């Protein structure tokens, strides 16, 4: 293989796929990026067997071929190359010669034929999702996904495809986030996609006018966005029936509209007092919804106390509930709206936080108060 490429184009392609390079040492070639030069196109591919990413760009191909460069090292080299024309040439099967300006370096490579082949996109689910709401929803929903690999289904985002809508749901069982966006396509399905895959797609989906094409079957999901392709495994397992934990409309006893930014600031101040006091029990703030005020308080022996009063539009009962401040802050930060709405069902039962704007009308964040002094 021998190709000529501008540094900026090379950097774009390498950075696009770098996050799929495996960090584990189980199969060394997975630490590589496969560069393929064929039919006038340059393809950059990486996979950790959970997610695969491919970026195809134009390049001046002198000689077709392929080479599997060590991913992290090659990404580091590419970042530091001068802004100039770069020549990449394979030397034998396990060396790559990188030439730039009047300099050159060689990099030992993996055997390209050991790099796993990617499955072809196929499946009964096929359609498109507009980038703008997709990015917003992934950001808003992913906050509720779990990090705990012991329970894989909770590390994913549930995609429920039905009619002209796609619903995204994530929960770590302590809170739940749900959002809906448009879907133009065929098929009905419930797929659990690793949260990391969707976050990577959202990261690279910078053109908000574009659409993401999704093709999926029971085992794999394929996302295409311009010159980028993402292949993801579908997490196997039964997602719990999230609809049963969404409170019925008649259960809400307190509705409150609050200035988002002011509440965020108050919660961050309170977190300084209450954070990580006792593992798993820390960061608790008490919210009192009363009259036209929201009172926020935290009190920890030896750490300090805080009491704040915020203006709020409250309808319904006076209600006092304790919350993990981090759970509230994470939701308020992704909602973005100037005003947020708290709809509460009781001091120990789930409540919903929503944005007040039209853009966020299909998003909700369900959170449980913390029971203290039981």
């Amino acid at each position, binding site marked *: 293989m021998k190709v000529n490429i501008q540094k900026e184009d090379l950097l774009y392609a390498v950075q696009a796929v770098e996050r799929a390079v495996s960090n584990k*040492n189980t199969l060394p070639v997975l630490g590589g990026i496969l560069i393929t030069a064929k039919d006038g196109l340059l393809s950059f591919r990486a996979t950790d067997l959970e997610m695969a990413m491919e970026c195809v760009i134009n390049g001046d191909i002198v000689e077709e071929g392929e080479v599997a460069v060590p991913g992290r090292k090659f990404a580091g080299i590419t970042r530091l190359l001068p802004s100039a024309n770069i020549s990449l040439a394979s030397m034998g099967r396990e060396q790559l010669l990188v030439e730039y300006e009047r300099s050159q370096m060689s990099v*030992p490579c993996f055997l390209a034929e050991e790099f796993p082949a990617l499955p072809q996109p196929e499946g009964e689910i096929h359609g498109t999702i507009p980038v703008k709401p997709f990015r917003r929803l992934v950001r808003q929903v992913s906050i509720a996904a779990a990090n705990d690999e*012991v*329970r894989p*289904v*909770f590390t994913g985002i549930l995609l429920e495809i039905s009619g002209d809508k796609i619903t995204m749901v994530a*929960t770590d*069982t*302590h*809170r*739940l986030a749900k959002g809906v966006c448009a879907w133009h396509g065929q098929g009905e399905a419930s797929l659990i996609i690793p949260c990391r895959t969707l976050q990577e797609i959202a990261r690279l989906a910078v053109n908000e006018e574009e659409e993401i094409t999704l093709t999926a079957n029971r085992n794999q999901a394929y996302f295409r966005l311009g010159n980028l392709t993402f292949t993801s495994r579908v997490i196997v397992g*039964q997602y*719990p029936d999230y609809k*049963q*934990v969404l409170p019925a409309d008649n259960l809400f006893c307190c509705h409150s509209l609050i200035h988002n930014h002011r509440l965020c600031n108050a919660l961050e101040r309170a977190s300084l007092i209450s954070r990580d006091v006792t*593992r*798993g029990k820390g960061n608790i703030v008490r919210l009192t919804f009363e009259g036209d005020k929201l009172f926020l308080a935290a009190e920890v022996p030896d750490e300090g106390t805080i009491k704040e009063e915020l203006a709020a539009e409250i309808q319904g009962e006076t209600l006092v509930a304790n919350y*993990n401040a981090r759970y509230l802050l994470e939701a308020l930060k992704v909602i973005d709206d100037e005003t947020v709405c708290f709809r509460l069902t009781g001091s120990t*039962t*789930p409540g919903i936080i929503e944005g007040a704007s039209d853009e966020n009308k299909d998003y909700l964040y*369900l959170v*449980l*108060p*913390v*029971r203290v002094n*039981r």
Partner: protein
Amino acid sequence: MTLKDDLEQWRKKLNEVLEEGDVLHERVADLEKENVLLQERLVNGDKSDGFEAVTKIYDDGYHICPANFGRVRDEECLFCLNFLLHKGKKDV
């Protein structure tokens, strides 16, 4: 690649394996604790009715929802609580 590089790589790999072993040890200890508790409950029986028994398991810090049944619970769980609220209402 020099022998020194080789050794460094093996050292890193060994550390990773040891770290993974620590995580697994902790997980096994947690599971053994849960197992002992659940076995005691089974052997000794519970004098209270079923609903009270699961409420007690939840209050003792364990999940009672199908997705996580018997696992240690460090915070409130939407699915456990939903079960308790609905079952409680039905029993009333």
